[in-house]
Structure formats: structure tokens, C-alpha cells
């Protein structure tokens, strides 16, 4: 009996561990739920969309699907926004939609236990804590865990028609 319940405990804690894709924006490290990520590709061939907010770089062709590209560096007001060979687009699935987000680089995939996820403090004007699912602490690193669903469907991202939501 005891071994069984121990096993169950182990299984639940295992289930609560979550995997995150870690990416960098400037000097900071951010992470999103790996299950939201569809693929990672280079930044190329983006068609500009007129009269859209600055951080919406445009749309691109992802195997016949038209996908909007959002530059999180511009959205988060980073000083240095450059497009080079290292610039990466993370294609994420948000609800029924497919969106590409531009980041400076993707580093690794991390598994975080519930204890490692700390609630996000109230801060930031540029990135409201509404869009954070917490902060991940890993020895000397701190990961900002972004709730990509909430962020990309939010009104300020202007990715979704207000009327359709």
C-alpha cells in the first residue's frame, strides 16, 4: 500500500513539473510552455502590414498558412532590435490561431518543479503581470514565465479582432 501511494505521489509531482522553452530578449531570459510551441524557424520573408502597431512585423507564409509575426523585443521596448542570422521566430499555437514571435535566440528546454515557480510580483508597465504565469528560479538564473495565451490574445497586442472575441 505504502509503495503504491508513494508511487502516486511521485506521479502527481511528475505531472506538475512543466517543461518550458527558454528564449532570450536582450539580456533577459523568458520562457513559455513548451506545449504551445509548434516550431522554431528563422526570420525571413515577412510582408509588412500597413497601419498595424510597430511590434507587428507583418505576415509570413508558413507552408501555405498566413501567420502574423510579432516582435516581442519591440513590444517589450528593448533598446536593441536587430535582425540577423541568430534572430529566431518561435511559432506558437494560441487557441485556434498560429502566431510567430520574434526573439533574440532560443537557448534550451527546462523542466521546472512547482517549487521552482514563484508567483510574479506586481511590477512592470511594459509587461503587465497579468501576462506572466510566474518567475522560474534556477540556481543563479531567473526565467520570466510568460502566459503566451493571455499575452497574444490580449487587446493591446491587436492580433485579434475585438468584435470576434
Amino acid at each position, binding site marked *: 500500500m505504502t509503495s503504491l501511494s508513494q508511487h502516486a505521489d511521485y506521479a502527481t509531482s511528475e505531472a506538475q513539473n512543466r517543461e518550458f522553452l527558454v528564449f532570450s530578449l536582450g539580456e533577459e531570459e523568458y520562457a513559455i510552455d513548451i506545449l504551445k510551441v509548434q516550431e522554431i524557424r528563422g526570420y525571413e520573408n515577412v510582408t509588412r502590414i500597413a497601419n498595424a502597431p510597430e511590434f507587428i512585423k507583418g505576415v509570413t507564409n508558413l507552408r501555405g498558412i*498566413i501567420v502574423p509575426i510579432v516582435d516581442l523585443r519591440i513590444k517589450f521596448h528593448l533598446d536593441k532590435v536587430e535582425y540577423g542570422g541568430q534572430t529566431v521566430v518561435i511559432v506558437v499555437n494560441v487557441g485556434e490561431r498560429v*502566431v510567430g514571435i520574434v526573439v533574440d535566440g532560443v537557448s534550451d528546454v527546462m523542466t521546472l518543479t512547482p517549487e521552482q515557480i514563484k508567483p510574479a510580483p506586481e511590477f512592470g508597465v511594459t509587461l503587465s503581470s497579468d501576462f506572466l504565469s510566474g518567475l522560474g528560479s534556477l540556481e543563479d538564473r531567473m526565467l520570466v514565465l510568460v502566459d503566451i495565451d493571455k499575452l497574444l490574445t490580449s487587446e493591446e497586442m491587436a492580433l485579434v479582432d475585438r468584435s470576434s472575441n
Partner: protein
Amino acid sequence: MDITDFYDTFFEEAEELLADMERHLLEIDLEEPDAEQLNAIFRAAHSIKGGAGTFGFDVLQKTTHLLENLLDHARRGEMPLRRDIVDTFLETKDMLHDQLDAYRNQEEPDQAAFTRICQTLQQLAREEIGQELEAAASAPEDTGNAPTATPPAHTADTTTDNVAVASPTSEQLLAVALLNVGEKDRGLLVEELGQLGTVQGHHGDEECYEVTLLTGVSRDDIEAVMCFIVEPEQLQIRHAENEESVPEASPQAPPQSEKDPASPAKSETATSPALLTTGGASESGRPKAKKAKAGGESSSIRVSVDKVDQIINLVGELIITQSMLDQTVSELDGVTHGGLLNGMNLLQRNARDLQEAVMSVRMVPMDYVFSRYPRLVRDLAGKLDKEVELVTEGESTELDKSLTERIIDPLTHLVRNSLDHGIEDPDTREAAGKPRIGRLTLSAQHQGGNILIEVIDDGAGLDRDRLLAKAHESGLSVSDSMSDDEVWQLIFAPGFSTAKQVSDVSGRGVGMDVVKRNIQGMGGHVEIMSRRGQGTTTRIVLPLTLAILDGMSIKVGSEVFILPLSTVLESLQPSREDLYAMAGDDVVLKVRDEYLPVVAVHEALDVKGAKTQLKETIAVIVQGEGRRYALLVDDLIGQQQVVVKNLETNYRKVPGVSAATILGDGSVALILDIADLHRLSRAKKEARRPQRASIDYETLLQQEREPS
């Protein structure tokens, strides 16, 4: 294979049969009914009954049985046809449709409605032919289907009763010949036959195996059962002792009940029907492909629209890949790579042909839409005490399936409007020197890449004065000097109605604005032409398909955009003298005595690096939603067909842009929305003028859109 697999086939076929039945009922000439037509109606009812019996749809079977018997009398000329009788038949047809829907949704049909319609039909039978119709439950053909149908428990009870009742009354000796049937299937078939009656003997070889069967089941039903195992060609049924009629018909059952099932087949095989092969009589409940083989009619298969769309998408991708290759290959040297270049040309041609062929799969004739109006017109005319003749033209004109479905509602609205407000009552018409019978024409025709659908009535026409007065009342800004066209456009304003009184047909003023919006949503527009006292024509112009667009690619700065070719009238190099500056920064272009507003793409869409010198640019004269203006672009690249991709799937509506497409190099190009681009340009100019702190395009666009 489970019998439920055939349900969908049955439902679809039954629906088609009902539609056929309705069409014939509407067309039938009451004075001199066409025998062929009566037969066709009868056959439809009969086929549905057969299928309903096979699948154990009890209520449906009983209703069709009653209807069938009446129809049988009618086609033999034993019952006169009158308008009210046809009405009853139509009503029954509607009821059958409801029952079919109920079965489709796996519900039991409305029992009260069933009882009512049965009473109506019985009543009709009593009055017109002076006899009771026996209820279908005791009809002998019920029995044959039970073993295969695996019906619900309660029907199983009744069927066993029926065997007991039916067998002494109408047993006959049949010889069932099985041609080219394998050993294994033979055993199965004999067993099946054993459930239908008493097998008295069987002999023969694989080529021709004969089973003698004493049964109360009709041939049709035997065929219906057997055809699940063998092809109809493999089956021959004849009377074993040349019995043409049943000698000991029971007195309480009218003779036609036994003859019924066989008679349509008989009528087809003339007068010596000793040997019957399955004709068109027992078509129901079988997969379509088999039916086509048996009937020799045009063969077709049913495919879900999703599958077709998937193929269309894939072909679209193929075309894009092909253009990509084409671009790469075009840089190669033609001498050394001649073979490759030839191959590419061939690939291009094949890919285009494939695309065209696939697109044509989605096309359906307008008849699909028009065929639902005869009934509507008949019912409405009756309700409004008007006499109306419906004429349809161009039924074979083809249109994308998704569009035909979306056009039905707006078109129905226009037809109702024409009947209610357009065509006058017979006395008024006579007084105005017009024929008593009004004429409503529905027509469809292709014009370039568009389809024109017109609703034409020869009624009173629109009343300019009343429209204007009404507009004043509703607080719309109008003036007496407005052109006719502008006045007619008023009826598309929300909440606008000129009907003197609200009827349940129309007149509430909701509708015409919805019609217009629906049509615009499909990428089309509505025009109205009307002449007082002579009638009104409403014309709907629609693109043939939404999936592919003939486009003209243009370049502004380093960006490529697509203009829908249907909106492009001409393009020209503007000269300095033809450009006139207006108040503010507006510019107009004079083209052959016409002054057109000028919209620069680079201004409306903030393109950087575009040519700003007016004389260096090219003016494309475009027209959208009735507005004509000159669009300034840097360069024309060429015409090409593009696959339309929705932007809103993953993004949102973009002002001035209707959709996107993928170019040969794999990049995305935006397809411009001509009418919206004009609004956008005006909104931006508006925003720039007072130097507002922040420009909120959304709000401005909203304001711009509202009046239209």
C-alpha cells in the same frame, strides 16, 4: 457491413426524390396531367417507401404508402386532380421531409402530425375514390424487409404478425435465378430467401442457380433485400408457374396493394414481364455507384465538401511550388537546360489544368438554388391572392457551392419582396392594362469572372416620391435632386420599409440591408433598376468563386500588392495637365471629361521608398462598390491568378486589405480591397488635417463606414 452505413445514402436519395416529387407536383398540368409525370411522382413515393421499409422507418413508410396508393389512383386516371389535391400532396411531401429529418436526427417523427396527415389522406381517398386505404402496417411488402433491416423491437413484433396475416392471402411461387454467384454467397442468399418465404427447391450451377420460393413478398422487395449481397444484374425473378395475377386475393385487401410494388417495373418492361431484371424501381437503400450502374444514368459520387476543399488547398500549394520552381528555372541557360525548361512548361500547363479541373468540382448549377422557388412563389402567391408565373433562365449557369448556399437567403428575400411589394393583385394589373398574371423572372448568366443573378418582376416598380418621403420621415439625409439610382439605394438603408402595412411576408424593413450586407460579404454587390409601372430588376453580381482570384500585381516601393482584376478598369500614365489640386491635399485626375479622386497607395498604406512624383507614377482606374477612383502605383507587374488566403484565420481584418495570397517566391502579398482602401485614404487625410495628437484609424474608419 452494418445496415446503418446505408442510412446516409438513403437520406440523401430520399431527399432528392422528395425534391423531384415536389418539382413534378408543381409542374403538373391539372387539366391534362402528363402520364409520365404522374408515374415519376408515383415512383418517387414508391422508392422512398421501399427504402423506409428496409431501414425500419415505420412512420415514414406508412405515410408514403398512403400517398403512394392515392398517387396510383391518380396516375390511372381514377382520381381527378385538382389544385387542393395537389396541395394536399405537397403538404404530405413536406411532412415526409419532416419525418426524414427526424429519422436523420435519430428521433421519432411527430406522432400527432403523422396521425393528422394519415387522416387527411384517408379522407381524400374516401371522397375521391370512395374506398378506404388499408394501413401500410398490414401491407405485405413490409414482411420482406424485416430480416435484413434489424428493426427496433416493436416493429419486429408487427412484422411477425404480418407474415401470419399476409402469407395466406397473397402467396405466389417465384423462381429466383442467381447468375454468376459464388458458392458461399449462394448459401447466404438461399438462407435470406428462406426468411422471406418457403424455399421449395434449389438447383443449378454457378452460372445460373435457381431457387423456387413460395412467398407473400413482392419481387421488388426480394430484389431490395438481395441487392445488398449481389449486383442487380445478377438477379432474375419470374413467376414459377407463369402466374400473372394472384388468384386468391383476399376480399378485405384491395387488389392494388399486391400489384403496386411490381407495377412500376412492369410499366417499364412493357407487357410481357415474365422475366424481370431489376430496373429503376427498387433503387433506394443502395449505394449510389451501384445504382448508377444499374440505371445507366450519369454516374456520380458524393464527396464531402471538406475533402474537396482539402484537394483545392493542396492544388493551390502545388501551383505555388510550381511558380517557385519556375522562377528559379527561368534564371537558367535555355541552351544547356532545354529539357528541364520543357519539363517545367509541361508542369505548368498540367498544374493549371489540374487547378481548373479541381475548381470545377466545387461548381454547382444555379438550378440547385432556383429549384426551391417554384414552391415558394406558388405558396406566397396563394397567400397574397396574386397570380404569378415564375420563369427561370440560365439554370445551368455554374457557381461555387459555398456561394450557392449563401445566396439562397438573400435571393429568397428578393423574391418575397417582388411578390409582396412588386407584383400587383390581378385587378390592379388589369386596370393598368397589364396581363392579370404577373411574371417573376429569375435569371443567371456568366459575365467575365462574375455571375449575374437577376430577380425581375413586371410589377408596379419603385415609387420615387414615396421612397423620398419615407426617407425624410426616417431622418435620412435626402434631397429631391437625387438621381434615381441614389433613391433606389435608399431601400438598402437599415430599418427602411415602404410597405403600407406590415405583413408576415415582408414590410418590417429588416432585410434589404441584410441582403446587401450578405452579398457584399460574398465579394459582390447589388444593383436595382426600376421603372414606375413596369417593374423592378434587382441584379446581384457575384464572383464565381472565392478561392481563386484573377489579380493584377502592382509594385509600390519595394512591396507587391494584388488588385482584383474585376475592379480594374484601365491604367494610364497621368500627365501634369490632367491632375488638379483641390482644397487641402486632395488631387483629382481628369480622365476623358470625368474627374476622379486620386488615392496614392503609398500614402494609404504607408509604403516607404515609393515614387512620390505624380508624373512618375501609374494611375490605375479602379471601381469598387460603385465608387470610381484613380489609384497611384509605382509599377504594374502583370496579371496572374492567385489563391486567396484568409488573413483573419490567424490575424485580423486589415483596413484596405481583403485577403492575402502567396507569390511565386513564397512571400505573402496582400490583396487590396478597393472600396475599403478609399475609405482608409479618406480617414487618413481626415486624421492628418487637424493635426490630432494621436491617430485612431479604427474609430475614424468606423465613422467612415457607418453612413454607407
